[in-house]
């Protein structure tokens, strides 16, 4: 089962896939361009992983001082950064390197504290696609990755669909890829995660309680490139969804 949350004609609705695009809870069938897409669930704590794909670690190794053997590199994001499918993310005028990150987003469905790896996936409600933007120009070596890089308004794009865990038998068997203006720039496979979904839940729940609606953004593979105003960025994960975002320049945001 796939569900979305959209705004249409003055109200919020749940929606499911339909031959035309989507069907609202009141029966109306619509094309995906006709609605405003919101993040597909009520988002709690946003937990993100850095360097969780072996190839991405290699890609950034000149800049980084970690190896894949260290404790998982976890950081938190705030609700103000959330954006739905087909939204516009601001690219600041002075940025020279702003990049997308296509990630499998894991949504917690039952409270988890001290959960062992073997039981971890029972605490997952479902999955969606995330595009977790970064503006590298603002990177500073204090509480990395600092919020000015990773927690900008519109920098956590989620959707379009929330996919029930029951429909994803193995979260480590998914191919993912990103297209910029139709050209493939990133591809990877969740089997290459350094810490898989179950291990991440075991690790996180060892020191904090995970609650329903909390979401784990599981990191991105090799292949991040700079994107510019007007670019269309599509992050895609097999069986989960195809998440579209467009970059807007400062003038779009009145700056």
């Amino acid at each position: 089962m796939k569900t979305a949350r959209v705004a249409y004609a003055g109200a919020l609705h749940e929606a499911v896939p339909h031959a035309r695009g989507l069907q609202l809870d009141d029966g109306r069938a619509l094309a995906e361009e006709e609605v405003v897409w919101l993040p597909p669930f009520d988002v709690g704590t946003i937990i993100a992983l850095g360097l969780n794909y072996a190839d991405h670690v290699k890609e950034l190794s000149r800049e980084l001082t970690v190896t894949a053997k260290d404790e998982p590199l976890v950081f938190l994001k705030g609700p103000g950064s959330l954006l739905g499918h087909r939204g516009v993310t601001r690219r600041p005028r002075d940025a020279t390197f702003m990049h997308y990150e296509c990630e499998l987003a894991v949504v917690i469905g039952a409270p988890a504290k001290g959960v062992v790896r073997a039981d971890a996936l029972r605490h997952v409600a479902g999955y969606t696609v995330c595009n977790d933007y970064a503006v590298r120009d603002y990177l500073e070596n204090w509480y990395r990755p600092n919020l000015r890089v990773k927690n900008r308004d519109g920098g956590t794009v989620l959707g379009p669909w929330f996919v029930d865990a029951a429909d994803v038998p193995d979260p480590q068997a998914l191919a993912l890829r990103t297209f910029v203006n139709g050209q493939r720039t990133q591809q990877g496979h969740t089997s290459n995660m350094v810490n898989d979904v179950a291990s991440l839940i075991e690790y996180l729940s060892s020191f904090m309680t995970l609650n329903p609606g909390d979401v784990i953004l599981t990191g991105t593979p090799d292949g991040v490139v700079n994107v510019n105003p007007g670019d269309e960025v599509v992050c895609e994960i097999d069986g989960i969804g195809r998440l579209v975002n467009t970059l807007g320049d400062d003038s779009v945001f009145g700056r």
Partner: protein
Amino acid sequence: MLVNKAAAQHLAMAAPEIHFERAPWRLSGQVIGVALNDPAALAALGGAVHAPPYKAPPQAPVLYIKPRNTLAGIGARVVLPADVAEFELGATLGLVIGRTACAVPAAQALAHVAGCTLVLDLSVPHDSFYRPSVRFKARDGSCLIGPLMAAVDPDTTTLLLSVDGEPAQAVAAGRMLRSAARLIADVSEFMTLRPGDLLLLGLPASAPRVHAGQRFALTAAGLGTLEGCVA
């Protein structure tokens, strides 16, 4: 079946059980903390700020997030995890956002603040500020908030912290490198602050440490007393 799909899809962001007598009435659940805003905390690092891994002093505010599992009210018992010997007891002032702040200039920033409240941010002590593990900041119940919200001047308020009834630290909130107004301007430049969001003014240097069995209390004129203990 453990999974409650309905809960994941429909639970609103769990608001802490802290209510105010006027708008914004309650907290949103978003708490943003600031490290190294106390000049003494930065000075304690000395020349290390220019050496690897930092390579340069911080330019933007050094921010961290206290997630919703950390939020607690007055009288909270904070459980010391088995792998931790003691908590650092960070006394600070929380700025409660009353009006949405997006790219506001410092001169207008305080108009976006509904009031202040007391906050005790308990952290697992850590010496490196390069890439501290979330483990140090995200322990369950480690962010005590309350009991009141009042329109005190954040730049002239003094916080008094006691441990087991003895004075432990006095924090002049106005000594911070970035004032409340400057902080809101610099943060809202890239992340919009919304009503009920809580922006912490900064952790003091040399914060006392507390271990299991100790009680603590934070007080300031007009803001009541925020008490808790480590269990």
